[in-house]
């Protein structure tokens, strides 16, 4: 009986998987396959499922325009189930078995790190859409999200100049992205003359739901007579209880503003934002951006999902940029061969959704504007500041000892992801 039950369970799971994974329609030789490597189950499904849909929409749009190189695009969706080693297996399956031309995927840094060796070994292409901690540049990966200098540093600058903040709480979830970002920010703040006792760093576990102590600590830290702000790298699920506690404890944005790097329109969807008006987020895109391109994008997205209230967010724009860059590079190279695309894509420029153009740089990061938005009571952000021009993503932070001498340039003849300008050698700071 047990066996029967387990078999049914496994059968159901398999059926569910097949239902989502089977591509329909055209024969293989007529199509170019695009791999989508986003978790559709497990803890990260909450964020990643949206990105899967976004890529599907982009592919559908492109096919409506006639595809690429006269061929239709075909999506291959796999579910790495928020399981980091499974990301590597699924990536291998996409490249080796499905022979996809490019992969759009990953959310957490750990999932990206897990697939890196696979893409390197099999010479695949990965477009990674998330803001991340930097300190990486890989030949086969294109980082379309923000590097720390495209999000964290301008955000802190804004608070210093506009809000006159002198005291800083760096609050984050305990993993690599917040830790590296906070290290960069700490060095940066100290270089701007902020004393060590004016910086409080606090980490919490994933999915932390009891924020009473930390919110009280923030309140206490903010009562030292200097203007205080919270820089939040709190990730995912933990944000909702955090903001609920902030709202209930009566911490107003006018007194202690919280600027977040991982809270977008999607995260606010499950929240009454009334008490949170004025708290901030730094991104490269907001749904509220008032441009024609964005209005069209939002409309297409709502039509595609069949949900008139569906929100868009920054990682979706990153996929939009990455996808269009890939299409352009393929058309320029006249082939989907990874080496040809890697050579062709540097310098490719596509329109972004905030009214400008984004370009792929030689370090495989892209140029983006930085927007600071304040939360509104309808769950949207309103841009209150933006950089005058585009910011080039910096793979290696200038504020970390190990990386300030490093640059990345994947064009020949340098073709190196961690060139040390001090020693004149490729291969990072130590090794």
């Amino acid at each position: 009986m047990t066996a029967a039950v387990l078999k049914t369970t496994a059968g159901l799971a398999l059926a569910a998987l097949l239902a989502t994974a089977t591509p329909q329609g055209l024969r293989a030789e007529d199509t170019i396959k695009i791999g989508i490597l986003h978790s559709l189950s497990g803890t990260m499904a909450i964020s990643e499922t949206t990105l899967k849909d976004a890529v599907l929409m982009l592919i559908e749009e492109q096919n409506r325009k006639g595809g690429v190189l006269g061929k239709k695009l075909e999506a291959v969706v796999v579910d790495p189930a928020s399981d980091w080693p499974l990301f590597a297996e699924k990536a291998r399956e996409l490249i080796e078995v499905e022979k996809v031309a490019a992969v759009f995927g990953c959310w957490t840094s750990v999932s990206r790190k897990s697939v890196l060796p696979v893409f390197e070994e099999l010479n695949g292409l990965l477009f990674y859409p998330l803001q991340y901690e930097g300190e990486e540049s890989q030949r086969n990966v294109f980082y379309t999200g923000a590097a720390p200098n495209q999000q964290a540093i301008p955000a802190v600058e804004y608070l210093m100049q506009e809000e006159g903040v002198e005291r800083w709480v760096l609050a984050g979830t305990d993993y690599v992205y917040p830790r590296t970002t906070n290290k960069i920010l700490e060095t940066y703040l100290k270089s701007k003359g902020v004393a060590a006792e004016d910086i409080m760093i606090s980490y919490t576990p994933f999915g932390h739901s009891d924020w009473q102590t930390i919110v009280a600590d923030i309140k206490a830290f903010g009562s030292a007579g200097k203007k205080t702000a919270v820089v939040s790298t709190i990730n995912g699920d933990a944000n909702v209880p955090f903001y609920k506690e902030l709202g209930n404890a009566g911490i107003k944005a006018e007194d202690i503003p919280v600027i977040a790097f991982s809270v977008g329109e999607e995260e606010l969807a499950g929240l009454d934002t009334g008490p949170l008006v004025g708290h901030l987020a730094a991104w490269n895109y907001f749904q509220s951006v008032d441009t024609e391109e964005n209005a069209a994008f939002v409309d297409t997205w709502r039509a595609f999902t069949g949900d008139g209230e569906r929100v868009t967010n920054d990682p979706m724009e990153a996929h939009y940029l990455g996808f269009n860059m890939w299409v352009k590079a393929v058309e320029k190279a006249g082939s989907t061969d990874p080496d040809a695309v890697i050579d062709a894509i540097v310098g490719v420029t596509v329109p972004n959704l905030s009214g400008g153009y984004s370009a792929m740089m030689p370090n495989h990061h892209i140029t983006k504007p930085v927007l600071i938005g304040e939360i509104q009571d309808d769950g949207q952000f309103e841009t209150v500041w933006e950089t005058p021009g585009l910011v080039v993503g910096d793979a290696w932070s200038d504020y970390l000892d190990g990386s300030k001498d490093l640059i990345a340039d994947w064009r020949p003849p340098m073709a190196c992801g961690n060139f040390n300008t001090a020693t004149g050698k490729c291969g990072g700071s130590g090794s």
Partner: protein
Amino acid sequence: MYPPPPTLPRAALNACAAASALPAPKSSRGPMIRACLPPPAPAILALRALLLLALVLGASLAGNQARAGESPDLRAAIAALAKGSFAETEKRIAALTALGDARAVPALEALAGGDLYRRKADGAVFIVSGASGGYRLTDPLTLQDAGTAGRREVKKIRVNNRLRRAIRAALGALTLSASDPARRLAAAEAILKARDKEAVETLDRALARETVAEVAAALQAARAAAVLASDRSAEEKSAAINVLAARGDREAMAIVASIAATEDQALAGQATAALARMERSQALWDVARNIWYGLSLGSVLLLAAIGLAITFGVMGVINMAHGEMVMLGAYTAFMVQGLFGALVPGQIDYALVVALPAAFLVTGLVGIAIERGVIRFLHARPLETLLATWGVSLILQQGVRTLFGPTNREVGTPSFMSGAFELGQLTITYNRLWILVFSLALFAALIAAMKKTRFGLTIRAVTQNRRMAASMGIRTPLVDALTFGLGSGIAGIAGVALSQIDNVSPNLGQSYIIDSFMVVVFGGVGNLWGTLLGAMSLGIANKFLEPFAGAVLAKILVLVFLILFIQKRPRGLFALKGRAVEA
């Protein structure tokens, strides 16, 4: 940094060059950029002016609301808010408040709330509320209905935090003589936060006519803050420090701390001493705060674990799908709220009350189905039960994800559960308080059901000695199913409560399953009182460790302690004794 690649178009090149100038944004790119330059402090200047004016106008302000006469200046000043950058709007807020007319209050409040809009056609300004298919317009001065407008016909007047601060200070000055004591209190608090040195005389006048003690105390504190910001005599400042020290809260500490850092030796010394006194009393309050936070965390743990105390504690079923019952309960609350919104709009506060029995029914039935469909075939095979229920939990999670989508769902907070109140120096949030009360009530109800009802008696009989109970004519399979249903139903009720403080997402249950098992094992399997005590002591231990060790380490330390404890007392805090143990 790099020589730009040849294919980069000109625009991108310029952009990259501009980017290197970051982060000192240059102006000349319209209002957006100008807004980011640090403007002078016109708000402070204007605030002074307005406070002087308020002084002149004195008590007549309160009566202004009723006066129907139209003031062209006021209307023009409100209309002017709609133009220009943030910095310009800030000047215009100051100009508006300098008129000293309390009739500007609704417009300013709407501006702070993002409800003030400009009609594109004629530039007129309205307070706007949502209506189906467009916006409902209200005149900001007369507060009369002014028709409707489509979404594209009006444009919101934007505000940022700096403007909100300016508006708050302005509202404080304008509402200082309002008839409602609550408004006067809010005004006093706003002036306290603004720390404007010109406010002293205005506050003196307000104090002279204040009759409510609580408001008077707030006015005294605001006056003390204003005195400390001014260049008044040392004696006055010294008295002001004492006033703030007596108030003793975080806001007062912030002001005294800024005085402690000034040059004036005598005052700084007094401020430092006062600060030390305040910190000592804060330290005492910190202990009270930790106990309260601990009880609150304990009540959440109790809520999550109480259903498991039945299914695992009493029945001995290792139910890995317990967390999903909590999750289903939260989703039931979401559904009930949606139905409520559709059927009886405006009564959303009661949706949560209706959701409680609904969640009990839904999750109870799901529980019975799981018991009948899976668990009864695995009787006395704990490993298989564990694996099968874990599979069930995955199916339920993915089912909910497919049905409701992977994103968070919003369960609104009823008005009686939002906000906080002050108890001494303790901020107690209503939702935590209600959850504590609710979890204890649920616990009491469960104890009563187990001890006082016939159903409770049969449950205890079956779990203690199944064969004997069967011999006495009890239908043990039915009791098994109902007991499992009861445990699951209670988990569902817990889910309704937890929807108030946590995400309503398919992952909701996962975060509670480990904690639930921890509590039940620590308290002693099979003992409901042990679950209560276990939850509360784990909560308090966690909250006392957290300030020293940080949230991550505190959790680890609690787990390590638990492992050691179980080594010493494998049956938990309150081990069952007697024959029940062997059964």
